């Protein structure tokens, strides 16, 4: 599973982003997206394209965590969102790994970039976080991750030298996000 996490300020400026991979089930914490290295902007593209849905979903309940709100089937990418009361948005894109022995050969052969529906069904059968992005366990893990990042975010935003809407450059914050990712995802 590979993750791309981004924070958007209330005025839609990206103020923080990080890519990382799962550390569960023997993962080494390195992101391996299915895009070629030259197309990493696709992550940003996909994640930002979910903002419309975030805006639709944000008033539907009182919770800050919106669970997974959007999918981008061509890349088998799932997007979870978390809102802070001040309007900052935490978005997490997760992309399950290609499972080499699952799905039909037609699915794998269609394109190296595209996940196939056959693969999705196969993934649904396992219960690990990495393989099943919509299971309750995954939602819970993402919620824990978001909550932990939120705590760090609050602390960072309280620093007198941080101005609202400014890019978060704090190495401490980055370390904490990485640690939270390692712990929960």
């Amino acid at each position, binding site marked *: 599973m590979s993750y791309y996490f981004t924070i958007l300020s209330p005025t839609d400026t990206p103020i923080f982003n990080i890519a990382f991979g799962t550390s569960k089930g023997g993962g080494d914490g390195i992101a391996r997206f299915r895009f070629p290295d030259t197309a990493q902007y696709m992550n940003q593209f996909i994640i930002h394209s979910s903002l419309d849905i975030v805006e639709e979903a944000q008033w539907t309940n009182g919770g800050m965590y919106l669970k997974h709100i959007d999918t981008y089937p061509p890349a088998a990418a799932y997007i979870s969102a978390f809102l802070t009361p001040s309007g900052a948005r935490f978005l997490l894109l997760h992309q399950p790994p290609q499972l080499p022995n699952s799905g039909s050969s037609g699915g794998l052969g269609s394109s190296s970039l595209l996940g196939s529906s056959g693969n999705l069904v196969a993934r649904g059968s396992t219960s690990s976080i990495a393989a099943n992005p919509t299971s309750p366990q995954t939602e819970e893990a993402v919620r824990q991750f978001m909550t932990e990042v939120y705590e760090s975010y609050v*602390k*960072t935003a*309280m*620093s*007198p*030298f*941080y101005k609202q809407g400014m890019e978060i*450059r*704090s*190495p*401490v914050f980055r370390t904490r996000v990485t640690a939270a990712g390692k712990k929960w995802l």
Partner: protein
Amino acid sequence: MSSSKASRIGEEIWKTRIDKVNAELVTLTYGTIVAQLCQDYDSDYQEVNKQLDKMGYNIGMRLIEDFLAKSGVGRCANFRETADMIAKVGFKIFLNVAPTVTNWTSDNNQFSLIFDDNPLADFVELPDDGRAQDELWFSNILCGVLRGALEMVQMQIEAHFVSDVLRGDDTTEMRVSLVRYIEDEMPPEEE
């Protein structure tokens, strides 16, 4: 007066005679002051340190009166006693921290205060402009406070920070040196 007795006095006063205020109010207010100074002086951190020290000096000159009124302690017999009084009573009742007094020089005129906990610096991360980490002493106001307060009780001292966890050091340490006892009670120098 022993160090442990000073601790007890500080503890007692803190519990019974001090109005408490929300810690975050203090932290955020102080942080804003420092950040504003950095902006006003265009990130001239030497100047910011100086201004903080000056602000502290003015606070200290008044605070000593409040300190003596609240604590009811008398004159210290020597500089070692003064150090304990500052650390265990002064810092305790005003900031609810009790820094460790250590690293005395053999002539008993210089010591260090090690702060395990510094309420002024919660949440703070210094600006990453490559200079703040080397130049800004975020809590420099405390040096001024000590200088101002002790001057009012006939002790001229020099205080400065030598390390700060905000800069990535292991400890926050302030060095305090006694310059002289002011014998004839001169009015405080204009500053």
